[in-house]
């Protein structure tokens, strides 16, 4: 065990930050590899745990996703409303709201909401299990904690964020439609027709692909921070904090790369 070098200088802190970041990224990659290896061994699949996670992660998140999505859609319509009013191009409102909701704002905000609710919860839960030796208890029972605890969460987060984004898209557009009528006074049919005429299939699918990657990123990040908790209640709190922050960064990075690579 090597002792940490005592450097309180600016450069020392700077370097430490980088080393910590590298270490985190490396640990997450290793975790990902272990998850994939466990995924291959199908006997690790635990039905009960998977259903429980799907329920906790998916069904319980539905209300918050719907609420977020509806307001996102409304916001997009209001934001493009000024432009539309200035130019009178009312048919563009459907296009503007649809593109924004499908490809960028929808997946990102739903992903952030999801990370705040599910990712944080997951980190806290795993962290508590670590602190109270429950992970070790699984190991001494000959049960692979990755296969039993992490894989169901990983799968459930990907599957559920995917489907929740699809549902969220619908509610976002509905929220937009209501706002369109109520705030801008534009007939909803113009709005819906605008969406249908704008050929948004590619954007829609891109959003869903993003959701898959966001789900994976949130799962890896939240499980990583959960599993490496040390030092009791405070450690759990710190891990949750790190988990949410890292998830947000991961979401924006993944989003950027997918958007760039898509076109």
């Amino acid at each position, binding site marked *: 065990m090597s002792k940490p070098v005592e450097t309180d200088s600016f450069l020392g802190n700077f370097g430490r930050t980088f080393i910590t970041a590298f270490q985190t990224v490396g640990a997450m990659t290793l975790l990902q590899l272990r998850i994939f290896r466990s995924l291959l061994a199908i006997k690790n699949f635990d039905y009960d745990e998977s259903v429980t996670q799907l329920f906790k992660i998916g069904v319980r998140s539905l209300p918050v996703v719907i609420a977020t999505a509806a307001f996102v859609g409304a916001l997009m319509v209001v934001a493009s409303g000024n432009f539309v009013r200035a130019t009178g191009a009312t048919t563009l409102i459907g296009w503007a709201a649809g593109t924004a909701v499908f490809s960028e704002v929808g997946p990102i905000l739903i992903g952030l909401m999801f990370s705040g609710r599910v990712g944080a919860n997951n980190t806290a839960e795993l962290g508590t299990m670590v602190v109270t030796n429950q992970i070790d208890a699984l190991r001494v029972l*000959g049960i692979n904690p990755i296969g039993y605890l992490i894989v169901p969460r990983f799968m459930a987060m990907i599957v559920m964020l995917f489907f929740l984004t699809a549902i969220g898209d619908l509610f976002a557009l509905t929220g937009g439609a209501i706002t369109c009528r109520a705030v801008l006074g534009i007939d909803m049919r113009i709005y819906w027709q605008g969406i249908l005429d704008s050929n948004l299939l590619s954007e829609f699918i891109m959003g869903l692909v993003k959701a898959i990657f966001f789900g994976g990123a949130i799962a890896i990040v939240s499980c990583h921070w959960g599993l490496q908790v040390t030092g009791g209640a405070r450690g759990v709190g710190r891990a949750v904090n790190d988990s949410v922050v890292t998830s947000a960064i991961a979401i924006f990075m993944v989003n950027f790369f997918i958007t760039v690579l898509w076109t």
Partner: protein
Amino acid sequence: MIEYVNVTKQFGPLTVLDGINLTIKDGEITYVIGSSGTGKSVLVKHAVGLLRPDAGRILIDNIDTTDFNERQWNQIRMRYALVFQHPTLFDSMSLVDNVALPIRKHQKVSKPAAKKSAMEYLERVGMTTKADLMPSDVGPGERKRVSIARALTLSPDCAILDEPTTGLDVVASKNIDEMISELSKSLGKTVIVVSHDLRSIFGVADRIVFLYKGKIRLDGSPSAFRASDDPVVRQFVSGEASGPMET
């Protein structure tokens, strides 16, 4: 058979195990005793690969485990079941589901069958009436009983019990002691117990290993233990507050 060869373990500046040489024979009931914080739990955690020695090696059934990976250890753990000092039940599932979990995972049985089997194990520790409660609803002694039942579901060759009677009332302690005897005498299993409970030690143990300051101070039968003229051992046996023992 578990062999410790010159095992050393440090936590930071603190040397917990200092060159331990120990062979635990099959079929015996071995008690590992010593004052709190001398590394008894650390010692048994090495036997199932939860901790790896900083130096020295551990041989299980004459196989060197130094380079074992997690999957190989899982095979060992199926035969060497460890029950933790602090009961570590999964708090998201009921007591019976806790016990049924390893049955479901390791035996190809249906869920109801696993549950039924789990109830049998719970009966052995007298917990059938509270089977559907959650771990947080019951006391620590009861949790301990359930976690012992859970470990036994693996039908291990060797049970490693870390302070099984701590926090248990007199009646429950006696039940556990009887269970330990039964495991060894009638089922021929190896049992390793970490304990302070002098009552059970002299009633049950075949062999006593006294750990003091990271080293084995005494290794022998209960009678040899009782007859020892080592002042530290004598103080431990008598349980007197004053004496040379450092805690």
